[in-house]
């Protein structure tokens, strides 16, 4: 029988460290991004998200540690990495004197691969021909961002690295962008994107890494992270509330007549089974949000994982 083999990670870093003089922008960062997943890289401004991305693309040289993308070393084979990768920089700047179409042609020519997906992407992001023929200097922030998305994905890269991709996009375009990423995932493409917009990470990502001050705080499956979240629970009973000891997993309990309010950690199903009773009149469990999970990590002074 053949031994099962993990697929080779698309992105892999080992103790990746980057110093700017005395400033430690990345510190011993180790993570892996699996093929075909959408991986969110979360952190506040200045946490090291862009430094990580720039190191992966060869714009920055690691102080120590190693990193590989698509199985290639980021310092030795960055050209080949960039050939097979699409990159959207955060707050993208474009050539103002060119039209949108000229920008896309220019960048596509230098990419050396035909822009297979351009027409489809422009259609989905509502960039019709007349708009593309206007000069970039006349574009709004959102229009520039759309051009940025198209230039990153038009050559159908194996890996998309997107730095704050929905910045400046209106809600409708954000939804269109999410659907594009969903399709990329279905096609087996890998997406690594940084964000501090938690609902979009929750909506899109399979896994998420949380980074703070250059240190990796946690990597989780998004579903697992949400499942671990503490949820606010309100129960109302017919008659008086039961003894809190029969409410497993419920903490910070407040009892107000027949109403019990508390926070629930861990699995919901077990809790619901335990409290099932004919005298239970109402139960409200507020949805777990990634935002709370995120805030918990950032509020804590705990050691990184």
């Amino acid at each position: 029988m053949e031994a099962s083999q993990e697929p080779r990670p698309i992105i892999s870093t080992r103790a990746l460290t980057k110093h700017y003089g005395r400033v430690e922008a990345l510190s011993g960062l180790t993570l892996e991004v699996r093929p075909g997943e959408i991986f969110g890289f979360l952190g506040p401004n200045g946490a090291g998200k862009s430094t990580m991305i720039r190191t992966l693309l060869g714009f920055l040289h690691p102080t120590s540690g190693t990193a590989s993308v698509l199985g290639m070393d980021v310092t030795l084979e960055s050209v080949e990495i960039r050939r097979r990768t699409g990159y959207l920089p955060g707050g993208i700047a474009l050539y103002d004197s060119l039209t949108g179409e000229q920008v896309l042609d220019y960048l596509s020519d230098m990419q050396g691969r035909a822009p297979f997906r351009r027409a489809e992407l422009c259609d989905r992001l509502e960039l019709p021909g007349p708009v593309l023929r206007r000069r970039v200097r006349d574009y709004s922030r959102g229009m520039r961002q759309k051009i940025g998305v198209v230039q990153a994905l038009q050559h159908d890269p194996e890996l998309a690295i997107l730095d704050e991709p929905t910045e400046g996009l209106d809600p409708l375009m954000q939804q269109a962008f999410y659907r594009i990423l969903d399709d990329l995932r279905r096609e087996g493409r890998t997406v690594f994107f940084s964000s501090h917009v938690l609902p979009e990470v929750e909506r899109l990502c399979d896994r998420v890494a949380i980074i703070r001050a250059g240190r990796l705080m946690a990597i989780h499956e998004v579903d697992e992270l949400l499942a671990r979240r503490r949820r606010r629970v309100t129960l109302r009973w017919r008659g008086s509330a039961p003894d809190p000891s029969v409410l497993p997993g419920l903490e910070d309990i407040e009892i107000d007549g027949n109403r019990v309010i508390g926070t629930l950690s861990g699995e919901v199903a077990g809790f619901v089974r335990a409290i099932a009773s004919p005298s239970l009149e109402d139960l409200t469990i507020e949805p777990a949000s990634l935002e709370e999970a995120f805030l918990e990590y950032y509020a804590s002074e705990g050691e990184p994982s």
Partner: protein
Amino acid sequence: MSLRLFVQTLRWQRVRLAIVIAAGIGWGLLIPLFYNAFSDVVRELANQGAFPRELMSFGSGSLFTLPGALTLGLQHPLAIAMLAVFAIGASAPAVAGERARGTLEVLLARPIPRVGLYASILLALLVAVLIVLVAILGGMVGGTALQGIADELDLAQMPLVVLNGFGLWAAFTTFGLAASVTFDRPGPAIGLSLAYLLINYFLEILGSLWAAAAWTQDYSLFHHFNPGAILTGDFEALDLVIVFMAAVVPVIYALVVWPRRDLAAPS
């Protein structure tokens, strides 16, 4: 090396290039006209002692011979300004400007090695400088023909003049681009490159106008491009070696520094 980047770099410059080519040809046409019209008068006044002897030459040129007048035309601030439009004005902000605007990031995301990116931009700028130089010299040759004094010029030496002149301006271009890959903003790159050019020019002019400071000329790159001497068969190969060495050193520097530079997010 990216052909697309090379072409695009020239495209960015096309309007400027058209204007400077026209100005260069015009300037070149004027020099033989001035020579033809005023050299005898100036010579007569000089013989009468109307000017101090030092003012008879400006840089390495003079109005007394056609080759000397051509040297004068190429060392005149107007010609310097025309060539510096590309040798400094386009090269110094070429990379630093992209970096300051943030567009360098989308460029670097392409599968082009940094050395290839540098080479593409450098080659395009050198082509622009060469075109301007040829335009000025072409104007001079045309002007000489129009004035009916072509027999005073040994056209067979003209390729050497182009080569030597190109070496001189290539030196400023490579310096400008080396400064450009060093800084994050175009201001310091332009300032440093301009200072380099002006110091060279100052040393040349100072030495030509003040006999006691004649030694300063040897330290100026401008002194190692003397079309008058070349056209009269007095070409010194060492001049060519010096200007091309001055062109190569910044290239070596850039090839060492640029691929190793960390390019953090623009602030």
